[in-house]
Each structure stands twice: as C-alpha cells, then as structure tokens.
C-alpha cells in the first residue's frame, strides 16, 4: 500500500481528533499557569501582611484554580493514546525524543504539582504560613515545569535537533547526555516555552480582571474586586510585555527554522529584502516583516513561491534548494533506507554501509520523499493568516485594556467607566479565542509536517480506516462538551456566590 491507496479521509479525521483533543486540553492549561501565579502573589501578600483579607482573596482564586485543574487533569493523556493508535508510525519514529520529556513531565512535574496541591487545599490551619506559601508556589512551579517538558517535545517536532536517526530501529535517538541537553534547551523549545507560558499569564490576568469587573459592575465584593483588579491588571500589563517580547523572538525563530510557516502567517507569496507586514487586506507596513523576522532593516524574507522555487541565499550564504530538489533527495533517502535494511538482513555489510552513508547524506530531506506535489508543502494559508491576525489583534486589545485599567485605578476613576468594565468582562471569552488562535498558528502553520522536513502526516498516520477514527471523534466531542458544560456550571456557581469576605466580616463583627 502506498499513500495513494491509504484511506486519506482517515488522515483528516485523525488530525481533526487530535486538534479537538488538543484544543480542549488547551482550554485549561493557560489558566492553570496564569491563575497559579496570581494566587501565589496574593498569598505572598497575606504572608507578608498577615491580613486575613488577602488569605480569603487567595483562597477564592485557589478555588477557581482547583476547578480548572480538576477539569483539565488527565485530558492530555488522551493525546498520548492517539499517538499510539492513530499516529503509530510517528510514535515509533520519534523514539525517546518524545518519551524522555513526557516521562520527566509525568514523574517529576506532575507529582510535584499533585503533592503540593494537597497541602495548598488541605493545609490551611494545619501547616505554617510559610510552608503553605511554599506549597502554593511549588504547585504553580510544578505546572510551569510540566509545560516546559511538553513544549520541549512539541518544539522538537518543529525544529528536530539533537537527535540521531537509527536506520536499524527506525527511531530517532538521543545518543548522549549532550544531545538530551540539545533537545531540552533547543532555541525553539526556549522561545516556545517563554511565549506559551507568558500567554498563560495573560489568560490568568484577563480572567481575574474580568471576574473582578463583573463584581464591580454589580457593586458586590468591592474591596475584593478592587484588590484583585489591581493585582490582575498590573500582572496583566507585565504579561503583555512578556508576550510581545517572546512573540518577537518566536517570530525570528520561525523565520529561521520554518520559513514556510512565517510566509503563511503573512500570506506572503513573493519575498523581498524589505518585506511588508500586512495588517489586513492592502493595509501594509513597508519593510516591517523584514525587521520583525530578521531584526535588520534589510534582509531577505522568502515568500511561498521563493521557498518552492529555491535559489535565494540562505543566512548561512548557501543557496536554498527548490522543492523538487528536496523531493528527489527525499526519494533517495527513502530508497537508501529500504536498500540498507534489505542489505543488512541479507548480510551484505558493504552494501549496507554504502546505503547508510547515502541515507545520512539525504536525511535532512527524508520526509520530502512522501510529498507527491510541491503544492502539498504549503499549509492552508487563509486559516493561518487569519489565526495570526486574531491572535495579534486580540493581544493588542488586551494590552490596551490593561493599560487603561492600571491608569484609571491610579487616577481612582475606574468605576466611572462602566463600558471599560464591560469590555474587560467580555475579554474573558476573547482571551480563549486568542490563545486557541495561537495554537492554530503554531500547529496548522507547520502542515504538512508531523516532524519538520522528516515526516509528513501522510507517513506519520497509522493505516486506519476512517470510520474507526470518526467514531472516537464524536465520542470525544460529546464527552468534552459535557465536561465543559459541567465546568462552566461549577465555575459560574462559585463566581456568583463570590468570596463572601464582606458578609463574613459583618457576621464576625
């Protein structure tokens, strides 16, 4: 069976199922990262001042953190099931590159998180204030540490460095501790981690200020809402700065490692030395894309056609290969792998050595051997183009909202601007759209690759029949929808009830 006889709709259903699961999982992760840090800051305030108000404030946000954590926990495991069933070739091919980070994530980070989360919830009045505070921070750090290892695995798919392909096992292996470090601290992993985590902080901040705005509009829990609004908006403004800086580094890295993705972000078909940045339609900022992608005033940013045709000069002064050249090298690599394995099993060591050398020489283009038409190398441009604009546009809106919130609190005029409070409230669903748009940019933008240049999705997918994948897709859709409804109902109930700090104070008095 070659890929023309493969059930092609199975690829799309497997992709859709993975996308659905990842999108659902990604609803919970950013809030865990962001809210974790905010509640830790609030508890630190309690630790420093001893004011019971801050304790109750931190406890309220910890309650929301707990609901979010409970709903998100274990949903990521389903992705691992999908790897084993739907993406079995990929799972085998990635070898311990994927296994090692995920194992570290499971053993160290998850256990750290789950140990200290118990102290955080059950330990009030049972452990010292300092130990409780440390547990809260360690829960947050555990979640962040988890994110690191997951993003290391994801970054390797986008920028496969540090691995050695073993044609005997057909796996990518980490040959030494040095290659482990190369994988764990690859520049793609670093920028991806920083951008993803800072976007999680932004999500947490938006949720905190949005809920606080809701209380202020209803004149409820005013001290709690004002204090949370202050912490949330300052934190949000800092997060905005971090997201912009890390987004910039991320753009430069994508330009180097995945130029096709960058071109798709911009819908750029013809490159130039002073490539413009498209805002929407014909509204462009001349030369801005070059500045963002290269940090120089002049520098060639290739467009989609340039990447397919090749011939332009790469940053290392070599000429870019055309798609056809890469595809023919890919065919040579695949053929060399087949010949190597046949020669080895027939005991022809000399022939095997020659084929292995041929394979290694063409390995960077291995995945191109599965590309039938060079147009297949272009990701779905309209989806990526608009997802990028939604992400950047909404991110800019949040920066403006946080700036206004901080400014008006400084001027003590926040409640005179109910429209701003309403906008702040509506930023909660928008921040989720923004976050998912970022995920779409990163993952749809790298299509057709499961592993950049090494394995396209048509080779990564298992030889499944689409009905099997379709059934589980709809099961997931139902289960995830029910869980999401349950979560939202519980969240809304807790928010409607509120922290009841003032009521409790009145009762105590």
């Amino acid at each position: 069976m070659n890929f023309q006889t493969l059930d092609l709709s199975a690829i799309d259903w497997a992709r859709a199922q993975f996308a659905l699961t990842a999108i659902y999982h990604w609803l919970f992760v950013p809030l865990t990262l962001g809210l974790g840090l905010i509640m830790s800051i609030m508890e630190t305030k309690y630790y420093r001042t001893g004011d019971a108000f801050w304790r109750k404030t931190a406890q309220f946000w910890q309650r929301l953190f707990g609901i979010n954590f409970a709903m998100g926990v274990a949903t990521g495991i389903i992705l691992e099931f999908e790897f084993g069933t739907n993406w079995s070739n990929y799972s085998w091919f990635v070898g311990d590159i994927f296994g090692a980070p995920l194992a570290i994530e499971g053993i160290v980070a998850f256990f750290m998180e789950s140990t200290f989360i118990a102290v955080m919830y059950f330990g009030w009045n049972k452990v010292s204030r300092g130990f409780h505070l440390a547990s809260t921070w360690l829960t947050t750090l555990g979640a962040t540490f988890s994110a690191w290892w997951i993003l290391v695995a994801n970054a390797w798919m986008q920028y496969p460095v540090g691995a050695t392909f073993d044609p005997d096992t057909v796996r990518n292996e980490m040959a030494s501790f040095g290659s482990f470090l190369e994988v764990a601290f690859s520049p793609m992993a670093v920028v991806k981690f920083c951008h993803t985590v800072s976007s999680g902080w932004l999500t947490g901040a938006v949720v905190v200020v949005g809920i606080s705005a809701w209380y202020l509009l209803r004149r409820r829990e005013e001290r709690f809402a004002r204090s949370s609004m202050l912490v949330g908006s300052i934190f949000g403004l800092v997060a905005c700065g971090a997201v912009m800086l890390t987004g910039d580094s991320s753009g430069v890295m994508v330009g180097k490692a995945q130029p096709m993705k960058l071109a798709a972000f911009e819908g750029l078909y013809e490159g130039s030395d002073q490539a413009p940045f498209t805002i929407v339609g014909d509204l462009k900022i001349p030369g801005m894309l070059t500045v963002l992608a290269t940090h120089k005033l002049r520098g060639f940013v290739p467009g989609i056609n340039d990447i397919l045709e090749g011939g332009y000069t790469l940053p290392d002064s070599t000429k870019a290969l055309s798609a056809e050249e890469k595809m023919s090298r890919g065919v040579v690599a695949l053929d060399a792998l087949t010949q190597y394995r046949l020669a080895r099993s027939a005991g022809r060591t000399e022939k095997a050595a020659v084929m292995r050398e041929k394979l290694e020489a063409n390995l960077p283009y291995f995945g191109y051997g599965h590309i039938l038409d060079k147009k297949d190398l272009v990701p779905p441009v309209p989806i990526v183009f608009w997802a990028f604009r939604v992400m950047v546009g909404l991110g800019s809106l949040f920066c403006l909202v946080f700036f206004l919130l901080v400014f008006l609190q400084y001027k003590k005029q926040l409640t005179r601007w109910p429209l701003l409070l309403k906008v702040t409230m509506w930023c909660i669903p928008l921040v989720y759209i923004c976050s998912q748009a970022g995920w779409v940019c990163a993952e749809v933008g790298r299509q057709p690759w499961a592993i950049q240049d090494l394995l396209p999705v048509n080779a990564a997918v298992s030889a499944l029949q689409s009905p099997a994948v379709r059934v589980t897709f709809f099961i997931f859709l139902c289960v995830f929808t029910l869980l999401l409804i349950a979560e939202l109902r519980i969240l809304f109930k807790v928010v409607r009830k509120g922290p009841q700090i003032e009521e409790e104070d009145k009762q105590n008095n």
Partner: protein
Amino acid sequence: MTTHESFWHKAFHLYYDGFRNMTLGRTLWLIIAIKLFVIFLVLKLFFFPDFIGQHAEKGHESDFVAGEICKRGVEKPPVVPQGGQLIP
C-alpha cells in the same frame, strides 16, 4: 522516632481531614473519577489499541514501521527478486 511518627500522623490527618471536610471538592473528585473511568476503562480498552503491537510481530516492530514509511514514499521501493539480489 517520635518526630517521624508525628510527621506521618500529621500527614495522614492532613489528607484524612482534608478529604472529609471537602464541599466543592467532592463534586470535582466525582467528575475526575468519571473522567478517569471513561478515559482508561472505556476509551483506552475499546477504542485506542496499540496499533503497532497489534499489527507487527513482537521484536519486529521496526521492520513494520520501516515498511509502512517506505511503502508510502512517492516512488515504489525497489523490488527484491528471488534469490535476494538487490536492484541497484
């Protein structure tokens, strides 16, 4: 020894009292339990088999994956004629 007993005693009561006094937590644990049941006892057992484990011979998984990956290449892999002679 006393310090150790005291630590384990405290740790036990941290969890025991914590679980006993849960309010919202009871609902959340129930949801987590249902979710874990669905994930591990329904989805994993009935819908997510180990594809390679089912289709490849034990110990020959790499042959299976190599075959799958190479067969899906743009050009057909070289045919091995009888007698094991390879087409160059």
